[in-house]
């Protein structure tokens, strides 16, 4: 597609529930990143994919967070047993390679109630 697409744009879930957030990167971009952004803060790195593999997952806060990119394009960020502190905007970005300017999607605003 023309840009990075993220769905849903908004997600409200109850504490303890499981959620999946989807990212469809720009076609042909091999590098894909997940960030999350809380109000008044800069984006916080979560995980980086190069192709199908997670090249760096050091930003995932704990084992409730997991992400996959099985065919090297679409990626899904999965959060188990959601907590109120998980509420944030989850941003996905892609780039042609690993070290060039990144194109961000519009994000998924996750609210855990």
């Amino acid at each position, binding site marked *: 597609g023309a840009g990075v697409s993220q769905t849903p744009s908004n997600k409200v879930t109850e504490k303890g529930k499981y959620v999946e957030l989807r990212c469809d990167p720009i076609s042909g971009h091999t590098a894909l990143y997940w960030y999350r952004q809380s109000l008044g803060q*800069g*984006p916080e*790195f979560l995980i980086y994919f190069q192709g199908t593999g997670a090249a*760096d997952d050091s930003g995932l806060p704990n084992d409730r967070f997991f992400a996959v990119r099985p065919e090297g394009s679409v990626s899904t960020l999965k959060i188990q047993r959601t907590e109120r502190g998980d509420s944030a905007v989850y941003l996905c*970005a892609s780039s042609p390679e690993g070290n060039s*300017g*990144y*194109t*961000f999607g519009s994000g998924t605003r996750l609210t855990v109630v």
Partner: protein
Amino acid sequence: GQQVMQIPQYQHVQEGEDFTTYCNSSTTLSNIQWYKQRPGGHPVFLIQLVKSGEVKKQKRLTFQFGEAKKNSSLHITATQTTDVGTYFCAGPKAPGYIPTFGRGTSLIVHP
């Protein structure tokens, strides 16, 4: 770990005034990126600087990378209301190149 610090956190200006935001790192950076995020929007890539002492211009925006590659600045000449937003710098997370973002500088332009 490596962090990039940005100052100021907020800046109010009258339309037509200049604006500068500064980005500082405790470690040498291989590159620095700048992004703009409009209120309610997502970060949009503006530029990447790689060379020591590099200066790049985009219309009224001037980006500079320090000689020691530990600091950078973004200067906007004669601000307009369309410049409103938060400006982020991002330096690569060692040992690789995943961008680590500062807290940003929010620019408010009063007409």
